[in-house]
């Protein structure tokens, strides 16, 4: 019955964030009667893997392809190439291509800025002033979206919060345990640390665990990125001061919906910003935020 | 024309002019080698004359192989000088020795088991045409050499699929064909039978006729007297003398070697034969077929045959290592199935295998661990091994077998060839088995220790054990076996009682002449 196929290619099938995107796409597929193969690389840094998957997906002659490009520059040409055969819808991150039929993205640089704002606010709430030593932990080097968050965060701190001093700019290896180890060592090495930005889910889990272990939630404010049960729990307990949350479910859902529309020749909006929001203990009960924190994954 | 001549002529022109026959070609002056604190070779001064066959004899660990390794550039010397055709030479690498025409057949086969026979023979000296190897030509040439030498071996077989003895022949053929002025054999006959030894001797004489100087190391003194022009004796790393072969005798050489005399090497006591320990009826398996024989308490059963006659395979089959395809085994009158080595050991069978390198020893582990390996279960008290018993057992074997080592903790690989062989034997002496299978037990073992091992056999028999003795050295099985079985091509072709047949008869049966 479902002879229309719209594959969705995410960056990394093994993380919760992308599972929410896929869940949204799946729901859209069900609602619209479209077959939605869920594809993705093995890790966010696996650019070549994603290019291969894109090639394979196009070979199946689908109606359209929804893709979250792992790297801005690298995916440009392959997307140009693919767009010759099928319409391409971009979600989450951009790519160096003009061939997209539509774009539903979060601005990760903006996400980094929001994190900086959230961190400054949390520090001010705790100490009364926007001053002190802060640090950033990036899960993996060389990953486009993480780079952009880091860039946005550092830029915002520099321009807007001169009182905040970035004393450490660390990269981990994508492992929660490494995030945890780096965080404990940061605590040891920097007794005056007041804030940390852990720029993805896994690092927020690791850093949060270190804060919880050392019961430093009041002293060191940690802002994470994206959410799951664990980090929301941390937020409730006051271990984490805030989370920057995107709307992955909507990206997936609307991505497929838009793709179907494009394949039918309908006119669609070229650029949609799905937005990023700062969630704190205070606003987490708001229905809109609550929906973001508890996506309908299954 | 194919064969040795043709192939070895490839290098004739490159080698330096030969020294006149009878003049010194290679002189050692105070040559010395220490391994750490061990003085393997004390300052030795020996002169080798062009065109002679010069034998070197000495006990296990006397330093013979060390001397050879020094001359072939395998190991660096500690002190001393070497003069080659009157010039001092460094001999710092195997390449240098090879370039001068010095080659050796080492005691342990050092070839590449994964390569073919032909590839091994030409290794480092390949025939090329425009950068591409001439594989077919090399295989043909190698086959030519093997055939010429009378070695019945396929040049395209993988080396690792050959028996140790066959591999030794390959090493011999290889050394012989490499355009050589000076050729050293380190116990080349250890794994060979009479038949192959005779071929080897013909080869050696032929090389001598071509003007090659030969150094020949052996523990078999009769070979020395058959072959050599002169003989040098090493004892404990010291060169104790050189004799013209006509001016000495076995007794003098033994006295020089071990500093005492031995009345008799073959120690034979007759014991009253007890009940039958094991009986094989029509056993068949990989490499042997329809073998029936039995062993009684107090009896040595000898198995003789040429290389590849199937004796080792039979022993491994009996021991449960190889699956039997037909036949029955009776253990003390009861029919038994032996599916694996552990069952064999539980019944009371011990096997000292033929190849110490491949089957006998964990070379990079200490001597003590090797000796105790079969008996760790017995040495275990509760959860852990009793350290005292472990040490005591290892030290006892080291003492009984005169293994020349400062300690049981030394790695087996640091032992001389003969001493390694003693470890293989020592593993089983404390095992308390009823049936001992010794496959080539005295390969590379010096006369003194040989006599000691034979005495140990007698002690085992006295305690009511039986022994299967497999040997390619006819005098050994002939003098020791109460009953002698001759194998040929996997079958048992003849059986004799103690000294019932002549050497010649046994040999003829083994080669079907």
């Amino acid at each position, binding site marked *: 019955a479902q002879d229309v196929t719209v594959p969705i290619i995410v960056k990394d*099938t*093994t*993380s*919760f964030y*992308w*599972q929410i995107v896929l869940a949204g796409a799946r729901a859209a597929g069900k609602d619209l009667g479209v077959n939605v193969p869920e594809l993705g690389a093995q890790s966010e840094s696996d650019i070549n893997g994603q290019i291969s998957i894109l090639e394979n997906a196009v070979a199946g002659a689908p109606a359209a392809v929804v893709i979250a490009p792992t790297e801005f520059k690298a995916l440009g040409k392959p997307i140009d190439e693919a767009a010759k055969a099928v319409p391409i819808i971009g979600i989450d991150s951009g790519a160096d291509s003009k061939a997209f039929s539509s774009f539903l993205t979060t601005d990760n640089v903006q996400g980094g800025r929001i994190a900086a704002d959230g961190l400054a606010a949390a520090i001010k709430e705790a100490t009364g002033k926007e001053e002190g030593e802060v640090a950033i932990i990036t899960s993996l*080097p060389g990953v486009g979206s993480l780079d952009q968050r880091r860039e946005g965060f550092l830029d915002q701190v520099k321009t807007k919060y001169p009182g905040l001093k970035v*004393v450490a*700019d*660390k990269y*981990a290896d994508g*492992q*929660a*345990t490494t995030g945890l*180890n*780096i965080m404990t*060592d940061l605590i*040891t*090495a920097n007794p005056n640390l007041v804030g940390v930005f852990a720029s993805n889910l896994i690092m927020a*889990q690791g850093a949060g*665990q270190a804060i*919880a272990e050392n019961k430093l939630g009041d002293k060191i404010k940690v802002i994470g990125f994206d959410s*799951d*049960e*664990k980090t929301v*729990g941390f937020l409730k307990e006051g271990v984490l001061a805030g989370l920057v949350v995107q709307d992955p479910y909507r990206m997936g859902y609307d991505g497929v919906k838009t793709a179907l529309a494009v394949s039918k020749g309908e006119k669609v909006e070229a650029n949609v910003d799905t937005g990023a929001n700062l969630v704190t203990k205070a606003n987490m009960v708001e229905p809109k935020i609550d929906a973001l924190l508890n996506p309908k*994954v*299954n | 024309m194919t064969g040795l001549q043709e192939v070895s002529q490839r290098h004739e022109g490159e080698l330096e002019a030969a020294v006149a026959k009878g003049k010194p070609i290679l002189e050692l002056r105070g040559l010395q080698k220490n*391994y*750490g*604190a061990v003085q393997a070779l004390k300052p030795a001064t020996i002169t080798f004359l062009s065109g002679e066959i010069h034998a070197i004899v000495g006990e296990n660990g006397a330093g013979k192989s060390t001397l050879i390794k020094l001359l072939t550039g395998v190991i660096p010397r500690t002190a001393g000088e070497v003069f080659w055709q009157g010039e001092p030479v460094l001999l710092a690498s195997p390449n240098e020795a090879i370039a001068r025409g010095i080659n050796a057949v080492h005691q342990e086969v050092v070839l590449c088991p994964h390569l073919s026979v032909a590839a091994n023979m030409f290794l480092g000296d390949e025939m090329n045409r425009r950068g591409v190897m001439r594989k077919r030509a090399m295989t043909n040439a190698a086959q030519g050499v093997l055939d010429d030498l009378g070695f019945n071996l396929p040049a395209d077989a993988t080396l690792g699929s050959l028996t140790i003895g066959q591999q030794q022949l390959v090493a011999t053929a290889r050394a012989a064909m490499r355009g050589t002025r000076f050729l050293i054999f380190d116990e080349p006959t250890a794994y060979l039978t009479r038949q192959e030894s005779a071929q080897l001797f013909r080869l050696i004489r032929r090389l001598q006729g071509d003007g090659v100087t030969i150094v020949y190391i052996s523990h078999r003194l009769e070979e020395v007297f058959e072959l050599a022009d002169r003989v040098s004796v090493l004892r404990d790393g010291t060169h104790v003398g050189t004799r013209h072969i006509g001016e000495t005798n076995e007794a003098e050489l033994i006295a020089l070697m071990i500093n005492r005399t031995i009345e008799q090497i073959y120690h034979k006591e007759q014991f009253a034969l007890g009940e039958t320990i094991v009986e094989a009826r029509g056993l068949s398996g990989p490499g042997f077929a329809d073998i029936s024989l039995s062993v009684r308490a107090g009896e040595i059963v000898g198995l003789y045959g040429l290389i590849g006659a199937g004796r080792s395979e039979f022993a491994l089959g009996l*021991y449960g*290592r190889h699956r039997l395809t037909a036949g029955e085994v009776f253990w003390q009158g009861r029919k038994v199935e032996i599916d694996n*080595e552990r069952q064999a*050991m539980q019944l009371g069978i011990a*096997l000292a*295998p033929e190849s110490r390198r491949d*089957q*006998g*020893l*964990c070379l*990079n*582990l*200490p001597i003590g*661990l090797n000796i*105790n*390996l*079969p008996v*760790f*279960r017995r040495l*275990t008290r509760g959860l*852990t091994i009793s350290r005292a018993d472990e040490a005591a057992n290892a030290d006892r074997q080291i003492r009984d077998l005169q293994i020349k080592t*400062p*300690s*049981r*903790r*030394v*790695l087996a*690989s*640091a032992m001389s060839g003969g001493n390694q062989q003693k470890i293989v034997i020592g593993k089983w002496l404390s095992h308390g088995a009823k049936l001992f299978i010794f496959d080539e037990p005295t390969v590379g073992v010096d006369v003194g220790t040989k006599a000691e091992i034979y005495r140990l056999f007698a002690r085992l028999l006295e305690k009511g054990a039986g022994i299967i003795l497999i040997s390619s050295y006819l005098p050994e099985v002939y003098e020791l076996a109460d009953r002698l079985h001759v194998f040929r091509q996997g079958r048992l072709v003849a059986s004799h009682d103690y000294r019932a047949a002549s050497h010649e008869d046994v040999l003829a049966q083994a080669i079907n002449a």
Partner: protein
Amino acid sequence: MSVETVESGAGPTPKRGVSILFGLTLLGLLVVLWLLLGLATSAFWTPNNISNVLRQGAMTAILAVGQTFVIITAGIDLSVGAVVGFTSVIVAWLLAAGVPLWLALVATLAIGVLIGAFHAFGIVRMGLPPFIITLATLTSLRGIGLLITNGSTISITNEAFTSFSRADFLGIPSLFWMVIVVAIPAYVFLHLSRFGRYLFAVGSNSEAARLSGVNVNRTIYLAYILSSTCAAFVGLLLASRIGIGNATQAEGWELQAIASSVIGGTSLFGAVGSVHGPLLGAFILATINNGANLLNVNSFWQRIITGLLIIVIVYFDQLRRRGSR
């Protein structure tokens, strides 16, 4: 002590206690590192930081010990990282399903045993190279774990379980106690019992071991089961430490475990290794990371320095061992 089993070179003079000395000297290198770090940063020698180092090295140390058993038999176990991630999922899943804690722990360890047995089965019965069978389970286990969690994580709410990894006992982190709990029986097993000797014999020459009556197959089963069980145990510790079950965790830990083992003097060709070596190797690596963090070394320089230090440490160790010949 393990004198009999460690010397790998062809040493003519028997050195009593060479193995201990070797252990000590690697320990010496570790102590030198610690002293230097103590001079360079005041934070290093605080009790808190020492606890951190002990905690940070603990999991790799346990993995490395298990891995060492396998490497001594001349094998390799690439699956340990995946087993850690997988068992962290299993225990989280069981706890989430309301299984009692003790049963969840036992069941998780039992799964470790099964995985090891499967590896040995593949090697012994199917004739597969250890590299292949453990690579295959590495791949498959991650897949199964991801299926169970649906690509996400399972939070662990059992307070008793998650607080364990944070706890101290006699001032020493519980995670480090776990290293001791593993290392002591491992030492007895490898260096004092006959099974340990059999591992070495199989790794050195399995044919000789077989003809000496060693049950080679059982020995291989033993080695792989021990390695996987150590990994499952680390999976429990990891789940306790980060409070989640996540199938993609512990990625690349197999390389760290093997590296710790080799730094600790184990030979990948088998028959050479100890229990204390890998432990030291793991804590050397943990110290390098901790020190770099304390000194706030740029993360990229940290990688460069780690690589260089590995070369330097193994080189000196090598030199010393050659010298002692």
